């Protein structure tokens, strides 16, 4: 390492990441999809596609549509299920020299527990990220995240069944994101990541139909970044556990907004579609920013936001 290179390592609770840039769940497949373009081990970590106990087909097409500075998706959490994940995807991930986070979800508290249990003791998985934006089939399909108590129960159940650090991924589709954040912290989560996509809808005016077969979808990309920064700001003020910032990050400057606000790492999703090398460029940009300002360690930037009223 060049002597001038800043130290990019960051700690996120019990995790030590080689740098603060991770690939976000659902946008990076199982990691290998991007391998022809760059070595995924260069990233601080990768979060794989949301995993459920059984394989899920997902929603009918069309599943995606572009929106101003973003996109709307209704993939429907399609995935290959735990069994095939362990057989087909894990061996490659185990050899990968970076932090591997497995994103999990369920349609009942029990299912979350079962997925966590199935991954217990499995080598090469460094942490779980728990997606609580899914509908709870036992409560009329209301998303877990909308109820702080349910969010806490999911967290407790996963913690009970798992031997790994647990990151709970919060949804922005709530009135006050601090409520689930505090509930989940109290339940014992090691870290939080936020935000997941914002529910939205696009209408095809020629066809007079929704653009997506699922009617509604999740908005992502640069369009949602200010919302995500605001929510990270609110949550880091409220909780003690570390926060990972997600939402619309496309450049190093965007990542810096989150780090300065107090996120200890960031996840990059949609920007990787516009530019598959976006994550690497963000890393370069972070190094450059630190170097040009004489900052030795990127950790020194975290939470340095000044909010006194000197405007």
């Amino acid at each position, binding site marked *: 390492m060049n002597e001038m290179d800043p130290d990019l390592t960051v700690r996120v609770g019990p995790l030590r990441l080689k740098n603060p840039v991770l690939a976000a769940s*659902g*946008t*990076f*497949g199982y990691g290998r*999809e*991007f391998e*022809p*373009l760059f070595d995924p081990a260069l990233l601080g970590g990768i979060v794989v*596609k949301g995993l459920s106990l059984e394989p899920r*087909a*997902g929603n*009918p*097409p*069309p*599943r*995606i*549509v*572009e929106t*101003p*500075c*973003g*996109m709307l*998706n209704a*993939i429907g959490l*399609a995935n290959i299920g735990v069994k095939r994940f362990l057989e087909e995807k894990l061996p490659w991930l185990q050899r990968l020299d970076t932090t591997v986070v497995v994103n999990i979800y369920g349609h009942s508290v029990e299912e979350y527990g079962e997925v966590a249990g199935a991954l217990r003791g499995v080598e090469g998985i460094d942490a779980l990220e728990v997606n609580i934006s899914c509908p709870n089939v036992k409560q009329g399909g209301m998303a877990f995240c909308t109820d702080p108590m349910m969010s806490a129960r999911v967290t407790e159940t996963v913690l009970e069944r798992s031997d790994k650090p647990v990151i709970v991924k919060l949804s922005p589709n709530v009135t006050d994101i601090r409520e689930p954040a505090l509930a989940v912290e109290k339940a014992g989560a090691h870290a939080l990541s936020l935000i997941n996509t914002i529910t939205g809808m696009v209408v*095809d005016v*020629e*066809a007079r*139909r929704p*653009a997506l*077969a699922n009617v509604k979808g999740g908005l992502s*990309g*640069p369009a949602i970044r200010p919302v995500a920064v605001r929510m990270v700001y609110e949550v880091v003020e409220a909780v003690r556990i570390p926060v990972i910032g997600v939402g619309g990050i*496309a450049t190093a400057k965007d990542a810096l907004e989150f780090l300065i606000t107090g996120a200890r790492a960031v996840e990059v999703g*949609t920007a*990787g*579609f*516009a*530019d*598959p*090398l976006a994550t690497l460029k963000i890393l370069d940009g972070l190094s450059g920013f630190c170097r040009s300002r004489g900052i030795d360690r990127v950790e020194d930037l975290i939470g340095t936001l000044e909010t006194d009223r000197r405007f």
Partner: protein
Amino acid sequence: MFECEPEITAHREVAPGTYLMTLREASIAKQARPGQFVMLRAFSGMDPLLRRPFSICGRIGEDAFGVLYRVVGRGTAVLAKQRTGDRIQVLGPLGNGFQTGPASGSFILAGGGVGVAPLFFLAQTLLGQGDRTPAFLAGFSGKQEVLSPGDVLQLDLEAEIATEDGTLGHAGPVTDLLEPHLAVCAEQGNKTTVCACGPPAMLERVAALARAAGASCQVSLESAMACGLGACLGCTVHAAPQEGIPYLRVCREGPVFPAEAVDWSRAGAGWS
């Protein structure tokens, strides 16, 4: 697969609203197989955001390849504004192309509109293999829209043309041209492969005709895409029941599929 920023070495309007862009990138030109595609981004900034998928329509010279596209929205409008000498972001070649194999037998290529693009590349490749000259059938809305392999790519191949308004060639859909070809092949007991690209309704009809005639059929499908790499699961189409999986990714398992892999009753869902 390469992520690069090649130079546009030629760019011209070949029919109203349809352009041929030549990109100098030897790595892609050499690796590409007919039916594969590239994801293009000619815009900086975040709006439009996503790259757009386009078939490779042929090798051009030693180190370049072509993209034949129609302006239908914002992304393609930006593309049309690019000039010779500009550079654009290119990811490719991606996906699975047409299976031509070493086998003998005849090829019938059937294209609808700008769907002829991947078939031009396929024709170019077959022509380069000596005695495999395919039949090339192409349908357009009218004379103005016609894209022929000779005019666009200087291929030594005569296309049979159909136009919906009857202003050139056969008056009617391109599938009318396909039927007599399939009949001849069936009579002679030839192994025949039909390769098609065009609107979903046309492809469904082509697949049905080929099946009835005992010919094998490969189709190149479209869907909206985000990653082009198989990672986002955004580009799926319904799979036929025997595939054993409900959906196929156009970018990864396709864009070229055996016709029987696709659930035609639900193909093209949502595309107006």
